[in-house]
């Protein structure tokens, strides 16, 4: 499905070069459910941006279904079956939930697309004509982002911290939603998350820290590393510079 080969990505911050993704290689398989986790600032969102084409790597290759998509635009990646739900969803003045869902759903009927709103716990009737602007609460915006992304029914979908800002009651449902999506899509789902309950439903866990993949494997293999607590040392080190 998706293969990252030796991906590196550097940004310039205050005139200094900062390598935020370092030589990352990863292989994601069809029909599998991945969870990417790791410390804040580790490079998870950046990796998702590299996959969806929002940023381009300095070196390395990205293959999608065997095809080299390293230089492919965001648009073409989207059309070829890559979807990405942002960690911080974007607001638009004058564009409605319906506009986004129908755009995402393609030739799906609006009624079917509305079903995705219900899945994320929003009453379609109340929200479908709302503008995706500053009047939406953080949690509402986040759910709309998830619903819009799911409506695309892509081969590969990356959700960046979908649980952030979602209340506890809805969180339980959200987990079921991802489970169902997984059953239905037969595609590859990648969730970036810090939540143990989401980690629990992963087929495979990917640990990213300091711009590197530090471990991949089953929950049993990766969790001990997370619980060992050496991230705290890491942040103290940073303070000492």
């Amino acid at each position, binding site marked *: 499905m998706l293969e990252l080969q030796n991906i590196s990505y550097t940004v310039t911050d205050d005139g200094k070069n900062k390598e935020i993704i370092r030589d990352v290689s990863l292989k994601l398989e069809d029909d599998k459910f991945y969870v990417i986790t790791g410390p804040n600032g580790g490079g998870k969102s950046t990796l998702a941006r590299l996959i969806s084409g929002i940023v381009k790597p300095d070196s390395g290759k990205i293959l999608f279904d065997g095809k080299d998509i390293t230089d492919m635009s965001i648009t073409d*990646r989207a059309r070829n079956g890559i*979807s*990405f739900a*942002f960690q911080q969803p974007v607001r638009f003045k004058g*564009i409605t939930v319906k506009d*986004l869902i129908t*755009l995402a759903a393609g030739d799906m009927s609006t009624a079917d697309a509305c079903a995705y709103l219900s899945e994320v716990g929003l009453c379609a009737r109340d929200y479908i004509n709302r503008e995706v602007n500053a009047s939406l609460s953080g949690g509402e915006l986040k759910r709309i982002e998830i619903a819009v992304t799911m409506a*695309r029914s892509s081969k590969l979908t990356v959700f960046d911290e979908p649980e952030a800002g979602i209340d506890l009651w809805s969180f339980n449902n959200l987990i079921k939603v991802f489970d169902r999506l997984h059953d239905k899509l037969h595609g590859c789902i990648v969730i970036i998350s810090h939540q143990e309950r989401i980690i629990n439903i992963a087929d495979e866990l990917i640990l990213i820290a300091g711009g590197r993949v530090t471990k991949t494997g089953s929950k049993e293999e990766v969790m001990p590393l997370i619980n060992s607590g050496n991230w705290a040392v890491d942040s103290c080190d940073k303070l000492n510079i």
Partner: protein
Amino acid sequence: MNNMDNIQKRLLEEVADLHEIPEGAYNIRSNGEGAGRRSTEHIEITTKTDKPGIDIHIKDNTVRESVHIPVIISQTGLTESVYNDFFIGENCDVTIIAGCGIHNCGTQKSEHDGIHTFLVGKNSRVRYVEKHYGEGDGRGEVVLNPQTIVHLAENSYLEMDTVQIKGVDSTIRTTRGDVADNATLIVKEKIMTHGTQHAETDFIVDLNGVNSGTHLVSRSVAKENSTQMFRSNIRGNNACNGHSECDAIIMDNGKVAAVPELEANCVDASLIHEAAIGKIAGEQLTKLMSLGLTEEEAVEMIVNGFLK
């Protein structure tokens, strides 16, 4: 209306959504002349005797009625100033649809300056809709300089919606208002300029009454080499609420300047101005592109939504 040609009919459709003779009172002005008029039991339209234009008298207690007063110009080189005065009685609830469409395929300037004065009686509600549209393949300029003067009596309300999306080379829109006790003036304008067009907006509102209020909202897009200027001055002369908002997207070499002024002349006046000018946010484009749109399609969707 029957003796209008196709250009005139299309202009009428653009500015007033009119396909046929409207319901209620109307006055159609075409190439500087009257092209049809109807007064009704409650709304009387008469021709001014001292200058070009009409007086529209709306009787007390007129509710759910409308007046259409479109102006169309298809003759190149026509320049006119027209005065339309609305005398709206008490306890009314009416909709007024004005608009000006110019088709200029000649080389001379066509200009229409409409001066609209509203005297709104106590407890009345007015919705005033105005649409400006220009077209033509000639090199003649299309110029529209509308002036709107609103006097709001106690407890009255006027909402003005103006739209200018296409084809007007130069426009200076002037709006003046004075607002009495418990009255409210709302103005919403939408402007898009392109090419080398220039649009200026100039509001001055005096909030004179206790509990008077105003809300001025301008949304605009300046594309290519076009320029826009937004000026507003809200003067709070009593316990009142004033709010103005200028929200503009600039593209290509478009330029927008906003000069907001607030003047609180009473300690209980509460006045706010918000202005945001900038290009389309990069993350808005990437979001829509990640849903499969090209960059151009994404820009179009954002601009259309913004001006909707």
